[in-house]
């Protein structure tokens, strides 16, 4: 199902129809709940978004977004509470500020703007989860796979050494 897609791990082409892979960072209180609501309401949407739950959209470090792109994501979607509705008062505003800066940086790296989205989806908006995800998937299908100049162009910053150790146990 993932045609013409280079696996950044081993450089091999994975054969199949191209489907974008999107990493979602959803806040626990609004967007993650909205996705749960979509489930409870049996709303159907594209399976391309893999969700990482965070307590608040303000927790999303821009490095998470860069790491996702570096690991081969075709898109990143951050979901938080609507302005004024943040469970932690203002984390979503902090998220938005970082996202604005990050968007400019991604543009400089040649990553198309459709690939990075921040959406406010409240716990009651199950159908909006569908609308946003389907729309993003459709746009990324049209855009094709993410092409970074050299691989891996971006490295995970942080205590990666320990992560490697842990993973190779």
């Amino acid at each position, binding site marked *: 199902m993932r045609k013409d897609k280079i696996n950044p791990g081993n450089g091999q082409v994975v054969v199949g129809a191209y489907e974008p892979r999107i990493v979602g960072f959803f806040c626990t209180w609004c967007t993650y*709940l909205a*996705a*749960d609501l979509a489930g409870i309401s049996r709303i159907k949407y594209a399976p391309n978004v893999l969700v990482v739950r965070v*307590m608040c959209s303000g*927790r999303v*470090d821009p490095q998470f977004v860069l790491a996702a792109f570096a690991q081969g*994501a075709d898109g990143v979607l951050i979901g938080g509470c609507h302005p004024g509705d943040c469970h*932690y008062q203002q984390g979503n505003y902090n998220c938005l500020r970082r996202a604005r800066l990050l968007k400019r940086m991604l543009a400089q790296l040649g990553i198309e703007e459709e690939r990075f989205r921040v959406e406010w989806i409240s716990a009651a908006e199950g159908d909006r989860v569908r609308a946003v995800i389907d729309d993003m998937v459709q746009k990324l299908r049209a855009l094709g796979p993410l092409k970074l100049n050299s691989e891996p162009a971006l490295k*995970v910053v942080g205590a990666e050494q320990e*992560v490697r150790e842990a993973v190779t146990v």
Partner: protein
Amino acid sequence: MSDSGNRDLTARIGVYVCHCGANIAAIVDVPALTEYAATVPGVVVAREYKYMCSDPGQELIRQDIHDHDLNRIVVASCSPLMHEPTFRGALARSGINPFLLQMVNIREHVSWVHTDKAEATAKAKDLVRAAARRVRLHKPLEKRRVEINPNVLVVGGGIAGIHAALTIANSGKHVYLVERQPTIGGHMAYFDKTFPTLDCAACILTPKMTAVGSHPNITLWTYSEVAAVEGYVGNYKVKVRRKPRYIHEDLCIGCQECVEACVYKEGRWADEFNLGLSKRKPIYLPFPQAVPQKVLIDRDACIEFKSGKCKKTCIEACGERMAIDFAQKETIEEIEVGGVILATGFKTFDARRNAYYGYGTYPNVYTSLEVERLVNASGPTSGEIVLRDGKKPERVGIIHCVGSRDHNTNRWCSKVCCMYSLKLAHLIRERIGAEVYNFYIDMRTPGKGYEEFYDRLLDEGVHFVRGRVAEVSDWPVHPSEEGKLIIRAEDTLAGFVRRIPVDMVVLAVGLEPQADARDVRRLFNISCSEEGWFLERHPKLAPVSTFTDGVFIAGACQGPKDIPDSVAQAGAAAAEAMALIDAKYVELEPYTAHVLEEECSGCKTCLSICPYTAISFVADIKKARVNEVLCKGCGTCVATCPSAAIEQNLFEDREIFEEVEGLLAYA
């Protein structure tokens, strides 16, 4: 806490995939997923089971932890917001730290939202792989214990708030009951009779109101609103704004001599309690059984406030009691409570929105709530059912579902309208012998004794026309329609359009969320459904809890409800609040942040970002420090720190990086 802490790098992982009956297994290939999970590095055992959350399911995990010496668990089942506490409990009972668990949501986020089995299974594999990689990095964590303040705040003094407050107060706890109106009682106080038993609403409500007013464990603040809320479960700090009544509540004895003495000999202003069907004076008691029995002054109506030149006969009448104080100011009370019950109720649909029913245009079109006042012995007509011109109606039409079950206004069924319409039909027929026509879509009478009440009405000769009314007009096409209101509706049982001339139209208006429900929601940090009803934590298993611990909901603020349901829910909310308080302490999630002092450069960026001022700067070492009691665990400071010197438990950078990498690593 040190960087690597007790991190166990020799992870022995068990993965447990749940079928959830057919909920997951019908879409996700569970055997294939389980087989795949077993191949992920570090996974020692992978199993599937029909209901992982059941006792045998949890026992499976416990046994494996024992037999295979597992130290990390992944459960792929429903949302972690549903069963994370269940599986954490299973880990704890098996002797390993409950936070060495990662859940994978393959129900709400996979099987219920996708249709293609191959795609759903592939996504589930990605998620399980990521979880298995992430869980290796989990550290054992301890929950923090905080003491609980034993006081409870109840917001809203309708029947739900009253019942909740009395239940808690009777158990010996202190309750603050805050009501926006000058009296408690809520909507129930408007009613004459309650369905289906036709017992007198005042006779069952007013004793409870009086009990609230005189209860030693209840602090009753009417004409007051919650202005600010801060804190967390067990320790909320609440500011209550008390609007000035211009009467000292402690001095007023409710004799109403001031009302008698007011320079206005007759009432001139719409009486709120009678929905404008009668007039009141600038100084007034909301209604005879009001609790507290304290008058208040309407600032916009009183001459003293308008010109300062009133003779102030009210003050004269009050005499040495000196309860009247034109200089009274708004005050703010600050209280500390452990739990909150929201019972803020509903408002009725504004019938003007359905212009084709003529409310506001034809004087003899009434809302059901107005008719409740008309049939009420203590109402504006002392219970006489008369039109605005004083005549008795001979024919009355009751239109159901006004602002309910209507895609143009509100889609929901308001649940109480069929029954209260039957009650009004009965009362009108009994008192004045009028012909009563009910226009309904469906009769909805589930409830103890409700269907029997409907049967009784059929026997009493009330007419029922099945069909949605198209319009109410005063245009006669036949001499018999002269001077009447004509209800035009399709009779879907008889199969033709009928015109029924009546003298009085009653619009059975539906229930809606309060106009400021969304503001209240924000104040208490809870969620609303799309319609604006307060959202319960779980529709079946946690119907009075919210997603904010320590905040409970009761009554019609959660959705349309009749009196028995509201009271039942109020009792449930009171029990939940008491269970919380009686535990004496509460365990808080350990998702807090902490500063790695050796990494901190002392730049203070995090200080300005924290909404709870939980981070302070320790001047002598020039480092930031997080107060874990104040920290609520949003993690915003972690993302903000330019030196990666702040960590958040269970949401550490490395854990999230690992999860992302795991998601995207090809199978």
